[in-house]
C-alpha cells in the first residue's frame, strides 16, 4: 500500500496556518497588554528548545503510535496515544467553538449556531478523510492567499495607525511574563499536533527542521506585525475590549466604494486558519486513537468530528463564557504541550542508549 505523504512546502504551509489559527484563542485582552507583540517574540524564542524536543521524536517514525511507543514502550505508548488523541479532539472542539462564535457574532447573526457548527463539521470530515497529502497541497495553495490578505490588511490600515499607542513599553514585568507564557502555549506549543501528524507523513526528512523553524519565524513575525497594527489603529483600551480585534480594525478601514466590507478578507483568513488547525487536530486524533481502539483510521473520522462539534455546542453556551474559559486553557494544556514533550524526548534518548549498549554486549 502506498503511504500518504506531504511535501516540504505543504508541511511548512500547514504549520504556519495552524499556528495563525491558534492565535484566535488569545483575543484582544492578552495579559501582555501593550507589550503583546514583545511577548510573541519572546514566546517564539522560548519555543525553540521545545520545538527541537518535538522534532527529536520523529526521525525514522512512520506512525503516530510509533512515535509514542519508541519513547515510552508499547503499553505506555498506547496510553500516550489515548491521552494526546483526546487532547487533540478537545482542541478541535474548542477551535470549532471559536469558529462558531466568531461567525455568529460578526457575520451570520441570524443563522443558528448548530447549523454553523455542522457546516464546519462537514468540512473537517472531508479534510480529515482526505489525509495528509491532500491537506498539504491545500496548505500550499492557501498560505499565499492568507499572507497576501494579511499584508493587504496591514497596508490599508497604515494611514489610520498611531504608533504612539505602543508606548510605554514594559509597564509591568509580571504581565510580560504571563503574556509570554500564554503566547508560548496558545500560539506555538499547540503546534505539537500538526508537527507530529505531518512529521510522520513528510517525504523529505531533512526538510523537517528547516520547515518547522521557518514556520515559527514567519508566524512570530506575522503575529507581531498584526498585534502592532491592531494596537496602533485602535489603541490599547479598544483592542482589549474586542474578542476579534483584527476584524474590528478591518471594519474601520474605508477604501471607497470599490472595496466595500473589507473585513470579509480578515474573516476569510481567519476561517482558513481555523479549518487547517481543527482539521489537523482531528487527523491527529484519528491516527492516535485508531491503534488504541484497534480499528482503521477512517472509521474514526465521522465519530470524532460529530462528537467534537457537539462538545463545542454543549460545553460553551456563550461567547463570554468561551473566552473566560480560554483564560484557563494554557494551564489545562501545559502538561500535554510543555511538560511531556521533553520527557518523551528524554525517554527516547534513554531507550536508544540502552538498546545500543545491549547490542554492543
Amino acid at each position, binding site marked *: 500500500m502506498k503511504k500518504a505523504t506531504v511535501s516540504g512546502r505543504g508541511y511548512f504551509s500547514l504549520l504556519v496556518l495552524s499556528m495563525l489559527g491558534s492565535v484566535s484563542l488569545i483575543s484582544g485582552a492578552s495579559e501582555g497588554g501593550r507589550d503583546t507583540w514583545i511577548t510573541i517574540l519572546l514566546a517564539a524564542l522560548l519555543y525553540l528548545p521545545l520545538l527541537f524536543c518535538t522534532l527529536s521524536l520523529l526521525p525514522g517514525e512512520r506512525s503516530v503510535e510509533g512515535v509514542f511507543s519508541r519513547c515510552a514502550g508499547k503499553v505506555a505508548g498506547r496510553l500516550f496515544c489515548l491521552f494526546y488523541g483526546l487532547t487533540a479532539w478537545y482542541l478541535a472542539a474548542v477551535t470549532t467553538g471559536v469558529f462558531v462564535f466568531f461567525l455568529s457574532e460578526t457575520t451570520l447573526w441570524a443563522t443558528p449556531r448548530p447549523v454553523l457548527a455542522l457546516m464546519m463539521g462537514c468540512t473537517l470530515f472531508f479534510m480529515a478523510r482526505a489525509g495528509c497529502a491532500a491537506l498539504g497541497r491545500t496548505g500550499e495553495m492557501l498560505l499565499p492567499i492568507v499572507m497576501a490578505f494579511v499584508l493587504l490588511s496591514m497596508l490599508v490600515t497604515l494611514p489610520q495607525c498611531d504608533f504612539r499607542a505602543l508606548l510605554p513599553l514594559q509597564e509591568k514585568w509580571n504581565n510580560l511574563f504571563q503574556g509570554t507564557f500564554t503566547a508560548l502555549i496558545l500560539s506555538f506549543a499547540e503546534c505539537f499536533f500538526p508537527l507530529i501528524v505531518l512529521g510522520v507523513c513528510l517525504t523529505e526528512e531533512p526538510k523537517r527542521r528547516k520547515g518547522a523553524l521557518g514556520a515559527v519565524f514567519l508566524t512570530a513575525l506575522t503575529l507581531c506585525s498584526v498585534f502592532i497594527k491592531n494596537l496602533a489603529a485602535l489603541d490599547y483600551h479598544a483592542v482589549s475590549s474586542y474578542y476579534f480585534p483584527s476584524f474590528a480594525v478591518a471594519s474601520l478601514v474605508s477604501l471607497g466604494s470599490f472595496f466595500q466590507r473589507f473585513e470579509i478578507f480578515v474573516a476569510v483568513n481567519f476561517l482558513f486558519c481555523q479549518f487547517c488547525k481543527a482539521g489537523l487536530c482531528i487527523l491527529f486524533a484519528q491516527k492516535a486513537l485508531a491503534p488504541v481502539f484497534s480499528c482503521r483510521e477512517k472509521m474514526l473520522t465521522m465519530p470524532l468530528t460529530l462528537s467534537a462539534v457537539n462538545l463545542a455546542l*454543549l460545553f460553551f453556551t456563550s461567547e463570554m463564557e468561551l473566552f*473566560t474559559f480560554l483564560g484557563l486553557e494554557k494551564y489545562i494544556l501545559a502538561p500535554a504541550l510543555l511538560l511531556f514533550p521533553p520527557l518523551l524526548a528524554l525517554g527516547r534518548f534513554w531507550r536508544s542508549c540502552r538498546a545500543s549498549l545491549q547490542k554492543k554486549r
Partner: protein
Amino acid sequence: MEVLLSVLLFYLFFAFLDQNLWKKKGKALFWYGLFWLGNLGATLAAAWGAHLPFPAQRVEAFLRALPGLWRGAGV
C-alpha cells in the same frame, strides 16, 4: 422548525458520507447507530438551548477554586 430541518438534512448528508453505517453489520451496526443517534440528539438538544451538566463556566469556577483549596490545606 428551520433549525430542525437543517440539522436533519446535515445528518442525512453525513449518513450518506459515512461508510461505516453501510458496511457494519449486526451488533456493531447497532452500537454505531446508537452513537450516531446520540450525536443527532445532542445537536438537536443544543439547538434548543441545552448544555452539559458541567458547562465551561462551572468547570472554570471549579478549576479557579483549586489553588484556594491548596492554600486551605496548608500546602
